[in-house]
């Protein structure tokens, strides 16, 4: 990552930001531009969605923020954690599109993994893993193996694992895309409840207009590859949101606006 010079004013405004991307691009080894230039500023405690057609680089943006791959140019900045000790995983929790659980060990051990890798003592790690499992409603399944769980439950385990380190930022890469609609609605509501109670910054990647409007305070619509920002739409409604928002006129109005912003990204693409 190349660190560009930032002016003092920008530096000052960064303190209120959880994540800031400036002029970030990503080119793959074969020369294909996947992303950018891309600018994004996420305030602390904000819930934002990255929405775009498949292959637009939204997952790439998330991996850059997580530090799982390096940007070709531009800067990725994270707010430093204000504690004395460095947080496990640099204060980031990541939820993948698949549950990405280790099939050979129990649900509790899967959730404890980040703590184990971070050197947290076993007894404390188990207690924290159990607490994280309880927060996603799976307290009774700590000793089960992943294959014994349904798709939605596996995703909850994955969420518990991301939360067990008490991260400041939660990065979610189309986490509910493979689930059926009813399970997805339930997980949407549970995620919103968790976000309200824990106050984490959430960056949520999705290709569902309805999901992005329902969940987030801001929907960032991206163009087709290489991904840039097409529109940045703020979703304002009475909090806390619930099922009545999902059926309200305001909701469908927002969905229409977001869909309209998304439409140019699909123009010229064959709809397969």
């Amino acid at each position, binding site marked *: 990552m190349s660190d560009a010079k930032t002016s003092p004013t920008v530096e000052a405004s960064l303190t209120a930001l959880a994540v800031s991307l400036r002029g970030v691009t990503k080119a793959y080894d074969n020369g294909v531009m996947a992303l950018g230039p891309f600018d994004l500023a996420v305030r602390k405690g904000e819930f934002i969605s990255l929405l775009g057609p498949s292959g637009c680089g939204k997952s790439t943006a998330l991996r850059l923020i997580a530090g799982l791959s390096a940007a070709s140019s531009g800067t990725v900045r994270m707010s430093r954690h204000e504690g004395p000790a460095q947080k496990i995983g640099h204060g980031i929790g990541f939820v993948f599109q698949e549950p*990405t659980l280790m099939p050979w060990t129990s649900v509790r051990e899967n959730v404890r*993994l980040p703590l184990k890798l971070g050197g947290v003592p076993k007894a404390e790690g188990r207690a924290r893993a159990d607490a994280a499992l309880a927060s996603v409603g799976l307290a009774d399944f700590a000793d089960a193996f992943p294959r014994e769980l349904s798709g939605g439950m596996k995703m909850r385990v994955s969420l518990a694992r991301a939360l067990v380190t008490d991260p400041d930022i939660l990065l979610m890469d189309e986490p509910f895309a493979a689930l059926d609609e009813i399970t997805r609605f339930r997980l949407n509501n549970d995620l919103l409840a968790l976000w309200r109670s824990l106050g984490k910054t959430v960056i949520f990647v999705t290709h569902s207009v309805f999901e992005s409007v329902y969940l987030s305070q801001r929907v960032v619509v991206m163009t087709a590859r290489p991904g840039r920002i097409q529109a940045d739409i703020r979703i304002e409604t009475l909090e806390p949101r619930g099922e009545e928002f999902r059926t309200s006129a305001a909701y469908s109005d927002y969905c229409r606006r977001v869909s309209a912003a998304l439409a140019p990204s699909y123009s010229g693409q064959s709809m397969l």
Partner: protein
Amino acid sequence: MNAQAPVTAKPSGAQNAVRFVLPVIVFAAGLAAWELVVRIREIPPYVLPAPSVIFLTLIKDWAVLSQSLATTLLTTLEGFVAASIGGVALALLFNQSKWVEYSLFPYAVVLQVTPVIAIAPLLLIYLEQQTAVVVCAFIVAFFPVLSNTTLGLNSVDRNLAGLFQLYGASPPQTLRFLKLPAALPYILGGLRIAGGLSLIGAVVAEIAAGTAGAGSGLAYRIAESGYRLNIPRMFAALLLLSLAGIVIYGVLALISHLVLRRWHESALGKEN
């Protein structure tokens, strides 16, 4: 597809019984036919001994044959253990360093594709007889362990690897908690092949060695009985070798099943 399958409650129990009973019936019928042909045509035992004669020889010569069986099994075990440790260790080494892999892998292939029966006489010149026999068993058996372990270490889920990276796992942690467990089904598959192959390697080397000795294995007994036209004993020794092979395979398959039964697809029941 069997259209009735979902209707019948327990098809697997009856099917298992059939799968067990059918080969036994075929075996018994074959033995009976053999016995009958030998008796009716009055074929002398030095041409083709009847199954009853072979069985009696097995009991009569048990002292000699059991001694040889123990020798061959010990050789097989030594070769198998060496192949398992060597194969897994080499695969781990290859996984740590591409340079080592590129330098050594062609030679592993050369060892594998050169027929062991052609290497055995050379080994017998340079090594002590017992050592040479074990080395032959090792050469035949180690390659499947090496190649399967390599495949397993390379089949780690990409997202899980990313997760370990995110949480700052050290290389030993990644090996112990991610790569080895992920490779375990492949390693066990390799061991299952290696068990049978180390028996073959031991037998081939014993036949190549040929010379008499106090601790001579079953293969040597077969060669010796052939020279003496003691055909019933040849068959008896052959029978013991086959049984040893079946037992080795069964034990390794059982171990594999017990280790993987809680999580791996290969060990799960069909109802899932």
